[in-house]
């Protein structure tokens, strides 16, 4: 997957390395010698009802990419929270340069040389890159723009990246924004760089570039903690891997062993650590032979659907497809080519300029969102917290967000709390939603559990056609597999499924047919048989299948 792990062509010559060391005031020569910069000893962190970290030991050394691997809810975020000063351990201690040091605040963490790049971008989109980098300086001083430019040039030069200082952050791609965040950490003399789920927002190319950048950073003597739940990235980018499971550290592959193993061996060893028995790649799914009812009339018929482009979203043009009962139609394509617009136009959230949508033979293109849902069209959004749920509302209410006012949960417009709680408890059990209580605000659940709430809401009853938009995006392996099983079961029940995904493996593993979307148009549809991968791939890069 990544050829840049060793022998990288961009590796800076040794002297430039010293240059970097020279201005990094936090560096002491002894720390390069393989001693721990930061070490965790028996760190335990509890939250009400939950042990997030259970006596975790961790040693973080200069010159190493330490991969922290674990599913959603394994305790990675809490661990990072403690390292970056957002949270304090309940038990155990954190050693910095061998001395026990409580990290009391994010500011303190920065002063100790611990820089964190969080999963969600923390830049001000309306400011330029330079302005973002200068934030946090004393307010009574003039911004030291020239000094900044010189230091940035120094750092980017050795790392082989280019950063446009005068560009607005909102104009940068996610990958470029991430480089800015890393650069910011470097400007603050970080010795330890924590990258929290940094690849989840990136394109495959962006991921490779990040991998190369990490390699160059550790070669300069930095320590990196890289958090991910993708096994292949761990194997490709790491020097040392620690696996977390349910708050405990269940295993570690030290660098000596790491070097002796091949990528496949590493992956299978991690899988062994994470899941016990399974040996082979658990994501490799066997596509079951399904009996899509070939003779049946299509449940969903879309003809010449078009949507006007807006300032920040591409439009759609002449989209046509049918889905029969029991069939899964995949939509493949690079993110941002109109997938969301397609889903929203079908669900009724976005106005179509022309074309028709027929559900079970009846035209629905002029109906409202609510009416389409009542007729059996369900849309499982990819923006789980942004639009899928109301984060501050309890889990129980979020199950019925699309049924407000409907019997038996509301009678004559009055809320029937007992009915709601009863049904919600049922759904929680049925869909295995892990929540401290029905009253817990849904935003406090992990991503996987929020997704289960959405699945329960959309699949519960009366569904005929279900649109899944990136249903496994950001989920850990267990939840990914569970979600995929739900989708398969949905189709097996005789529903029509539209599966929008940017994960080609997922589509190849699940769909009957795969359509490819590019620039808001379907450029081709492929039967998912043996050579589908090549055909879809050719379509995605703009060649005819």
């Amino acid at each position, binding site marked *: 997957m990544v050829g840049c792990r060793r022998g990288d062509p961009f590796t800076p010559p040794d002297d430039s390395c010293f240059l970097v060391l020279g201005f990094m005031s936090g560096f002491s020569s002894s720390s390069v010698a393989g001693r721990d910069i930061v070490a965790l000893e028996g760190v335990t962190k509890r*939250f009400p*009802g*939950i*042990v*997030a970290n*259970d006596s975790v030991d961790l040693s973080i050394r200069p010159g190493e990419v330490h991969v922290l691997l674990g599913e959603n*809810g*394994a*305790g990675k975020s*809490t661990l990072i*929270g403690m390292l970056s*000063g*957002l*949270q*304090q351990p309940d038990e155990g201690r954190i050693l910095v340069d061998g001395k026990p040091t409580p990290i*009391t*605040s994010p500011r303190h963490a920065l002063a100790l040389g611990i820089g964190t790049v969080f999963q969600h971008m923390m830049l001000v989109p309306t400011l330029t890159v330079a302005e973002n980098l200068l934030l946090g300086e004393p307010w009574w001083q003039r911004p030291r723009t020239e000094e900044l430019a010189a230091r940035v040039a120094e750092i980017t030069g050795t790392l082989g990246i280019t950063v446009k200082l005068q560009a607005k952050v909102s104009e940068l791609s996610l990958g470029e924004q991430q480089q800015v965040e890393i650069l910011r950490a470097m400007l603050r003399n970080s010795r330890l760089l924590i990258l929290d789920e940094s690849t989840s927002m990136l394109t495959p190319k962006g991921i490779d570039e990040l991998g190369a950048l990490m390699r160059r950073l550790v070669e300069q003597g930095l320590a990196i903690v890289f958090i991910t739940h993708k096994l292949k990235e761990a194997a490709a980018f790491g020097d040392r891997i620690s696996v977390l499971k*349910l*708050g*405990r550290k269940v295993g570690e592959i030290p660098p000596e062993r790491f070097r002796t193993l091949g990528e496949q061996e590493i992956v299978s060893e991690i899988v062994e650590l994470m899941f016990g028995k399974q040996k082979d790649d658990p994501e490799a799914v066997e596509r079951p032979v399904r009996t899509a009812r070939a003779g049946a009339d299509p449940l969903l018929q879309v003809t010449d659907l078009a949507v006007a482009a807006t300032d920040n979203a591409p439009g759609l043009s002449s989209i046509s497809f049918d889905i029969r009962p029991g069939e899964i139609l995949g939509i493949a394509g690079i993110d941002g080519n109109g997938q969301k617009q397609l889903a929203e136009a079908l*669900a*009724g*959230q976005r106005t179509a300029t022309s074309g028709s949508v027929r559900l079970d033979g009846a035209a629905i293109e002029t109906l*409202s*969102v*609510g009416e*389409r*849902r009542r007729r059996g069209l369900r*849309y499982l*959004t990819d*923006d789980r917290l*942004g*639009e*899928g*749920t*109301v*984060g*501050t*509302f309890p889990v129980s209410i979020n199950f019925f*967000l*699309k049924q*407000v*006012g409907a019997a038996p949960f*509301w009678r004559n*417009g*009055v*809320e029937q709390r007992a009915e709601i*709680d009863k049904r919600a*408890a049922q759904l*929680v*059990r049925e869909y*295995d*939603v*892990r*929540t*401290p*209580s*029905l*009253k817990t605000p849904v935003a406090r659940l*992990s991503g996987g559990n929020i997704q289960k709430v959405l699945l329960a809401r959309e699949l519960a009853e009366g569904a005929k056609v279900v649109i899944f938009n990136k249903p496994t995006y950001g989920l850990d392996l267990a939840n990914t597999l569970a979600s995929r099983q739900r989708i398969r079961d949905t189709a097996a029940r005789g529903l029509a499924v539209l599966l929008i995904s940017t994960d080609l493996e997922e589509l190849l593993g699940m769909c009957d047919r795969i359509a490819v979307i590019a620039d808001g148009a379907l450029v081709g549809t492929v039967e998912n048989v043996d050579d589908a991968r090549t055909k879809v791939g050719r379509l995605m890069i703009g060649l005819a299948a």
Partner: protein
Amino acid sequence: MSIDTAPTVSATALDATSGAATRRDILHRLLMTLGPILIALVIAGCILLAVGVDPLAYYGFVLEKGLFSPLGIQQTLTRMAPLLFLAAGLIVAFRAGMWNLGGDGQFLLGAVTAAASAPVFVQIMPAWLALVCSFLIAMVVAMIWSLVPALLRAYQGVNEIITTLMMTFLGTSLANVLVKLAFRDPSTTVPQTRTLPVEDRLPRLFETTITSGLLLGLAAIVIVHLVMTRTAFGLKLRIVGANPRAAVHSGLGVPGLTVAVFAISAGLAGLAGAVDIIGVQGNVRADWNPAYGLAVIPAVFLARMNGFAAIGFVFLLSVLSIGGESAARRLGVPNHFTLVLVSIVLIVLALAEYFDHRYNQSRRA
């Protein structure tokens, strides 16, 4: 997060364990509300000292005139009637995430229409029906006045804070124009509307001077609270307020709900005007503007948009404004010192909230 106990839910069992926590939570909430008020009283006292007034005497007068004298408490309770209606209107709007700051314009237009229509109606129909009709007209006029900001917000996304504030200036002026030109009482020299005879106004409660409008106000705010917390309609409004994108995704008609919120909120403000005129004042004098609408906003915030808590804070506000008026007369403090006091309370409360938040963060960290 790993799950330590059974992964799923038995809601009742969990409720039992959280009982103590809830009690602590309520205690904390009380402390966080009353503490800042005390601090604010001290700060305001210092300001009084600085202008050469004995703060204890001032507060003494406020309490005596606003709370402990029989006449004072009756005035206080009477003052509550319009304030409760306004608070009810604000609760609807704020819970739905819409900042209707045009309460004063809506209030005055409601007041003027009620003042203009009631004396006419009582001559042609039974008194009770006349009052009901005046209330309805006041409500409808205020609703119509809210239509401009409502439609702009619903269909064009124009910020309602600015439009409602602008409409309140226009509304205040329009109310004045109506009093001076259209509804002026020809039999007096002062520009004012015709006066509703005392016997035709809302009945007083028992043997006191307290208006029965108080009961209407209490009913309004309790109903609003229940609608917002217990009904499907209230939940829809809260969804729009908490996450407008989720409201669209859930198929709620957000523009329609927006217009409804403004109509209800403004309608209640119009009723507040009517209840003040039909219950207490009897007429509207030109340039009359008590500015209740803006004064109530802090009370609603302090109550965190909870109807029952709002009743308490509106009572406090009434005590302050009735007591403050008389204390101001006696001690030579400007009448508006009440507003100074309320704003100090609000600032201290916001600071307390901020430090509490910081403390929680650092403790959790």
